[in-house]
């Protein structure tokens, strides 16, 4: 954990927390990310948009060190993570909510919730988590995968909040969920933003993130093809619609 001390600048508001530069990623022979550059500042919510197969998930997996081979630089809180093992990267304070949610079938809801170790102080307490997601409390001893899709998504987010991670990667949190559940997840994400967490939220459309994100990146075929701030969003909606095909 010695590296964590090397970056006094990161405690200042608005300082860069994550800087991805020239990221290339490969699955075996196939080259899926081509020189991706992304920057995220403290307290920001950054949306990563793009159609299916654009490389959004691969970008998040690269940050976590889960992609087989990657080149380029990924600096988090002043630490170059390109050579770190995934558990070392997580311990810098990054929480990962994967696209497939990753709820464990052989663990009950409570065990799923308690699985990620506390990596930083200041994580959400279990009672606070139940206030945020009351459904989880009622199903505490059911097997994790017996929950509905929406409840599994809540659990996937909840367990990361408990760990104290203050930089959160959310991969398509609304995928396949009913509108009422999407609203509940949206309210939760907004609360987390207000509490000062930094987030990257991956989505295929702007509906969910348009009122939450501070900045938007658009990906296509493994490249970042566009970027804009929330203020520029309205003026650029048409362009976005063309990228995303919605």
């Amino acid at each position, binding site marked *: 954990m010695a590296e964590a001390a090397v970056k006094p600048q990161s405690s200042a508001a608005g300082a860069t927390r994550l800087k991805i530069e020239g990221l290339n990623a490969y699955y075996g022979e196939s080259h899926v990310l081509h020189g991706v550059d992304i920057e995220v500042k403290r307290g920001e919510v950054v949306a990563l948009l793009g159609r299916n197969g654009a490389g959004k998930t691969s970008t998040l997996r690269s940050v976590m060190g889960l992609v087989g081979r990657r080149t380029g630089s990924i600096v988090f809180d002043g630490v170059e993570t390109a050579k770190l093992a995934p558990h070392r990267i997580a311990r810098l304070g990054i929480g*990962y909510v994967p696209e497939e949610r990753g709820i464990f079938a*052989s663990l009950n809801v409570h065990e799923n919730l*308690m699985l990620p170790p506390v990596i930083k102080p200041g994580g959400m307490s279990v009672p606070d988590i139940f206030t945020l997601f009351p459904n989880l409390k009622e199903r505490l001893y059911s097997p994790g995968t017996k929950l509905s899709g929406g409840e599994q998504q809540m659990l996937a987010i909840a*367990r990361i909040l408990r760990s104290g991670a203050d930089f959160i990667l959310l991969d398509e949190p609304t995928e396949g969920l009913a509108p009422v559940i999407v609203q509940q997840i949206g309210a939760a994400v907004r609360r987390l933003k207000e509490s000062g967490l930094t987030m990257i939220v991956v989505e295929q459309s702007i509906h969910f993130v348009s009122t939450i994100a501070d900045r938007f990146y658009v990906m296509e075929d493994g490249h970042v093809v566009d970027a804009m701030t929330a203020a520029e969003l309205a003026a650029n909606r048409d362009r976005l619609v063309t990228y995303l095909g919605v």
Partner: protein
Amino acid sequence: MFELLGIPPQALFGQLLLGLINGSFYALLSLGLAVIFGMLNVINFAHGALYMVGAFVAWYLLQYAGIGYWGALIITPVVVGILGLVIEKTMLRHLYKLDHLYGLLLTFGLALILEGGFKYQYGVSGQSYPVPAALNGGTNLGFMFLPFYRGWVVALSIVVCVATWYAIEKTRLGSYLRAATENPKLVQAFGINVPVMITMTYGTGVALAGLAGVMAAPIYSVNPLMGSNLIIVVFAVVVIGGMGSIFGAVASGYLLGLMEGLTKVFLPEASNIVVFLIMVVVLLLRPAGLFGRER
């Protein structure tokens, strides 16, 4: 079926006890195999050889250090466990990226090397190992004679199996293990050092084999082939119980030991093949095993 009535209870219960003893070893060994298979996806062919090494470690401790059974019961699993850590870190680890078959081949090779080495040194005749003094003798239960040591083996194996099952199913560390068995990468992405967990799991799994080796030493003689005779049956037990099912491994270990005992009473000719017959039937009717999850 008339002979059934002609069986004296002494013979029946004697064979059942023998079956239970064998079942105790099946359970301990298949438990370790199941834990290792779940986490590493490696069918640990070296398991029988490491059980044999465990028995030899106990024998060495007695011969050269004057340390008896009770000391061996503690020291041997540690020694065999450390051997397991070394095997995992220096060899197995490098094969995970390849097909599971390579792990099996490596451990198969290790088993042959270990057995060949001990055979070269000691031949195939056994070294005797005394029953600990405190467990000498036995008691007549009326329907059968129970040697104390055999009762102890059954009891200890049940305690170890239940404790291991509890640790895996009911503790926090066990939830890490179950989760990492399902999705090791995600568990590691939560900040848990999964590579170290894998090493420790292999060490613990083979330590159980080492423990079984010590327990076996006073019953079967300590000899280089004791593991290879046993491990084939244990593989069948694991298949019957269901690959990767902890409960299945333990339950089918005892059940099949008892089945063998019963077969010895009623159809002695079949006693050596009954386990394999059951395995074939289970594979055909329920390939995931009696307690395994169908995928």
